[in-house]
């Protein structure tokens, strides 16, 4: 499908919305977003599919909209995955170079990567991404490509992201059911950071937090490589739920209150203020204390940040984020969130937009589309790599360039 088409599509099946982004690659490989489709998602809880039929219906709507806008026919997508079951960790692999002249060959590199991937995963889990960070040659740090160097001991640090195989499979099967091919599955957090971070920011060290409807993903980059990833199965839905419970209103009403009057900080001017809830005839049903509303939201959002901050502290990464924190996802629209994040992380916080993708119009450059745009960008990077490889090793492409997902996708 990539042989004759320069269309890449990112698909994110989120908890609150399904988002399809269509990108077109020009001859140089640069990505241009030409279409976007979205629909309300009703069959997903906490980032995981719980009602496949409903999701399929919503998915068709979003795909149709994107096809209309971009005026193309979508045949395959890069699928974003998330959920509380997705976890990332770092692993080091070692390999002793055995060749006589101690020159490191690409076979040695393959071996050391294989060693780093040999990890104790629970049987039901599968690897989504295995990203190499740095090589070490005889303890020398920061080697990006050791082929051709001399050394006796080769080590590599990998970041491995894995998830529950069946749950990932569910999403893939569902997309397949709508006559679409899945090129690859991509962790949503990585997709969002692809869209938002420039290479310089990745080099300096950055934390990307994608606050979605049901989950919050976070990814830490430093020295240009992924250091840490994680998912909290807590998101905007939880905020609404807390409000519905605390203010004793319906969930849909809580959702509306959150959007209209929400704030991540309890502001002084709202002390003693109240909002009146009216029915369809304009009669007052109830008065809501604005301070309570903001307090409930603030506590929940602060907790999310604190949990992430704690985890980074434990991983020893808190001091490596010189580019600061980047927020995206629908949850990052809450007023005052930047201020709250600054308070918690004690560093520069940037509200998100897809800064690393060119030619985005204002309507597309919204925080909640970051992950989907990133998925399209991921696809563009992948297909550019493939095109390059195709020229060099034409036969490799015909036999199929294997990646980590092939096994999963084929099931």
């Amino acid at each position, binding site marked *: 499908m990539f042989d004759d088409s320069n269309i890449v599509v990112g698909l994110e099946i989120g908890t609150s919305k399904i988002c399809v982004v269509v990108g077109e690659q020009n001859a140089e490989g640069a990505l241009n977003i030409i279409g976007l489709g979205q629909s309300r998602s009703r069959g997903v809880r906490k980032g995981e599919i719980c009602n496949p039929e409903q999701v399929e219906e919503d998915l068709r709507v979003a795909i149709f909209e994107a096809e209309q806008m971009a005026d193309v026919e979508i045949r395959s997508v890069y699928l974003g995955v998330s959920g509380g079951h997705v976890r990332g960790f770092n692993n080091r692999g070692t390999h002793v170079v055995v060749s006589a002249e101690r020159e490191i060959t690409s076979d040695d590199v393959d071996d050391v990567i294989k060693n780093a991937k040999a990890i*104790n995963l629970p049987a039901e889990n599968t690897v989504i991404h295995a990203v190499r960070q740095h090589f070490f040659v005889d303890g020398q740090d920061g080697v990006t490509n050791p082929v051709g160097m001399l050394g006796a001991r080769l080590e590599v640090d990998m970041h491995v992201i894995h998830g529950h195989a069946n749950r990932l499979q569910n999403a893939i099967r569902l997309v397949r059911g709508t006559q679409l091919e899945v090129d690859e599955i991509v962790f949503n957090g990585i997709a969002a950071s692809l869209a938002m971070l420039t290479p310089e920011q990745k080099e300096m060290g950055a934390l990307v937090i994608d606050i979605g409807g049901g989950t919050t993903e976070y990814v830490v980059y430093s020295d240009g490589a992924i250091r840490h990833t994680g998912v909290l199965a807590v998101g905007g839905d*939880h905020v609404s*739920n807390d409000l519905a*419970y605390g203010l004793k209103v319906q969930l849909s009403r809580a959702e509306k209150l959150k959007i209209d009057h929400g704030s991540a900080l309890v502001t002084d001017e709202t002390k003693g203020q109240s909002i009146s809830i009216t029915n369809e005839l304009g009669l007052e049903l109830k008065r809501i*204390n604005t301070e309570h509303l903001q*307090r409930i939201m603030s506590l*929940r959002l602060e907790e999310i940040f604190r949990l992430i901050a704690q985890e980074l502290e434990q991983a020893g990464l808190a001091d490596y984020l010189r580019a600061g924190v980047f927020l995206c996802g629908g949850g990052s629209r809450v007023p005052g969130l930047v201020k709250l994040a600054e308070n918690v992380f004690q560093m520069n916080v940037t509200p998100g937009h897809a800064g690393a993708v060119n030619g985005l119009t204002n309507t597309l450059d919204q925080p909640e589309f970051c992950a989907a745009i990133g998925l399209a960008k991921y696809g563009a990077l992948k297909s550019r790599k493939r095109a390059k490889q195709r020229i060099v090793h034409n036969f490799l492409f015909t036999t199929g360039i294997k990646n980590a997902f092939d096994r999963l996708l084929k099931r």
Partner: protein
Amino acid sequence: METENQTPILETAGQPVVKFFGVGNAGIALLGQLATPEFAAAQTIAINTDAAAFATSGATVKIHLENKLLRGLGSGGDPERGRALADEQFSTLKSACEGANVIFILAGLGGGAGSGISPVLAKAAREAGALVLAFVTLPFDCEGNRREAQAQTALEQLKAAADGVICLPGQKVFKLIDENTSLVDTFNFSGGFLVEGVRGVWQLLTRPGLIQVHFSDLCTLLRDRHAENVFAFVEAAGAGRSREVVDKILAHPLLDEGRALADSDAVLVSLLAGKDLTMAEVNRVMEQVKRQCSHAQIIMGAAVDAELKGKLCVTVIAAKQNLAAAANFPTRVETRTGTPNATSQRDVVIARPARARRSGAKAVQTQLPLTIVSKGRFDKSEPTLHHGEDLDVPTFLRRGVPLN
């Protein structure tokens, strides 16, 4: 069992004296599988309540446990009868064990003889001053609940009495064979697994080692650990044999695809190869094993056998302490007051240091239904637990922030 007892024997013979005991019909069949030239030097002893099984056995010594009540019909699948018989003839068993440093007990648990006699035999062997290793098979699920229960009880008794128990659940074997395997082959196959384990330990003790595994190393690994052991015996040949061996270990079904290594707190690795064994190969295997079980105490050995041209055999024995079994075992011993050894068994159990099991098994968090907090739309979804806190419950409730 005390080292003073062992030293004179070790000095005279140069290597430990090993005796193999086959208990019950299954045990005797396993002894039969062991009868290869390799083991010719070892003494094999068959013990059964039913005389018929002896006819086919080539064991050097045959001990027939019998009294008038049984009328030559065997124990009839009742372990209590087997146990009573063994207790009755405890001295016979003990004298059969005299003079050995290591005693291997081979048995199939679930029936009368194997389940009843093995624990008593293990006790007798320890009293005679030997290290006792039991290799046992557990029944298949289809053999019924009663046999299963008998096997479990016997296994626990055996764990308390022997230094190490290596058990092979029949059901695990079931997963390894394909559908068309005949019944005979299945039993041979599961027996073969056990025999491989026995062979691995045997080689460990008898072959001249480059990096010698001392007899005492094996003792430290197994003695008083009453461990739940798993073992694997893999071999490979050719250029990439060290890599292949590692892959095989990590994929070995008895090691739960390598996960058993992560759970264990002591691991013994023994490599055996021809004269072409290189240090790099030893290093590569050990490196990978070490990575799998960073918490464990690792004992390694390497030996050379000229006959193994180009082959590399690796035996892995992983032992872990089973706290769950330790916790509920004393009460069971106490109820069995009839046996003379009950108190000493209990002492051993209690003397064991209470150590937390490694966090291999998933802990399932349950909530006490004391206060009912509605989680709204998340009521029916999988709870989001983070360090024991259910994040689905509104934050302000968990923090106890008042809203007036």
